[in-house]
């Protein structure tokens, strides 16, 4: 290969690295919330379609920039409760639900315990700590394949 040809090829075939791996590893680590973020984005896109709203209109309703809406709709934003609430208010849909699952779990535990009561007869003090854990709650994304139906009901 002559030197000129080699020089021209060296400009084409570089030692530069692709950025995909860093992004893929990041997505793997952050998979759980990214799934939730894309779930919210899908619900918003479905609501926009049903209301026949543009993204610009949503931005105006929320008093945020169009760029901000664009970022949300990509489904890769770590959304705050404030942003989710603003989206819900503007669109009139529920995007996230607070599920007091610990309280439910506690009830199930108590029910199971009450079955064992017949054998061991535990005291109130033994059950009390289980009942008292009911103040914490967890989040659940409301989005599912019937999101459009949910929206109709909500509207």
């Amino acid at each position, binding site marked *: *290969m002559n030197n000129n*040809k*080699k020089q*021209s*090829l*060296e*400009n*084409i*075939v*570089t*030692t*530069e*690295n*692709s*950025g*995909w*791996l860093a*992004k*893929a*590893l990041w*997505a*793997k680590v952050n*998979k759980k919330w990214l*799934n939730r973020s*894309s779930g919210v*984005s*899908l619900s918003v*896109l*479905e609501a926009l*379609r049903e209301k026949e709203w543009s993204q610009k209109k949503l931005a105006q309703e929320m008093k945020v920039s169009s760029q901000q809406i*664009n970022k949300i*709709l*990509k*489904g*890769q934003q770590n959304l705050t409760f404030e942003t989710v609430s603003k989206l819900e208010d503007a669109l009139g849909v529920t995007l996230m639900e607070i599920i007091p699952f610990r309280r439910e779990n506690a009830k199930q535990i108590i029910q199971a315990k009450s079955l064992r009561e017949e054998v061991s007869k535990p005291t109130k003090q033994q059950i009390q700590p289980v009942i008292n854990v009911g103040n914490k709650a967890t989040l659940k994304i409301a989005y599912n*394949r019937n*999101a*459009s139906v949910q929206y109709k009901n909500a509207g």
Partner: protein
Amino acid sequence: VKIINTFVPQLRAFKFSSVDELERNLDLWTNTKYLYEFFEKNKSNLSFFDVSTVAEAVEKTLLYVEVLRDNLIELVYQKNPNIDSLFHNLNDNEYKADVLLSKQKSKSGWLRLYAIKVEGNIYVITGGAIKLTEKMSQSDVTIEEQKKLDLCRNYLKDEGIYDELTLMELMI
């Protein structure tokens, strides 16, 4: 135009813009808004896949891209990665493995990565697409990718890049 490293041994990618074709396609396939708009535009083809809503198609794509990314990550960290397991001849009826600068595809659901195989088992990604039609000639996005495959193949040919040796020599 540049050809860059992907970290996956024996896999390179063309770079036509600010990002290479592997990164660009993975970015698009994880962008909920892009996917939603794409499937909204192409929803008439979804019935062939037993998918009834645009949202369902988006969800499926996000799963397909996760599988594809995991396969690629695995190849990066494997001791003896087999890149051939990821690609097949573009033409399903083509069984000859020794075609010079052959056109290749990698599948994950309806996602496709397209590449040119350089002698010595090096694959250079030329692009990618969401393929919802039976033939590449039946949709604008895959027609575009077909053109890119031809252009890239001719480009490699014109520049005399046929084999691993030429590529590796230039990358050192």
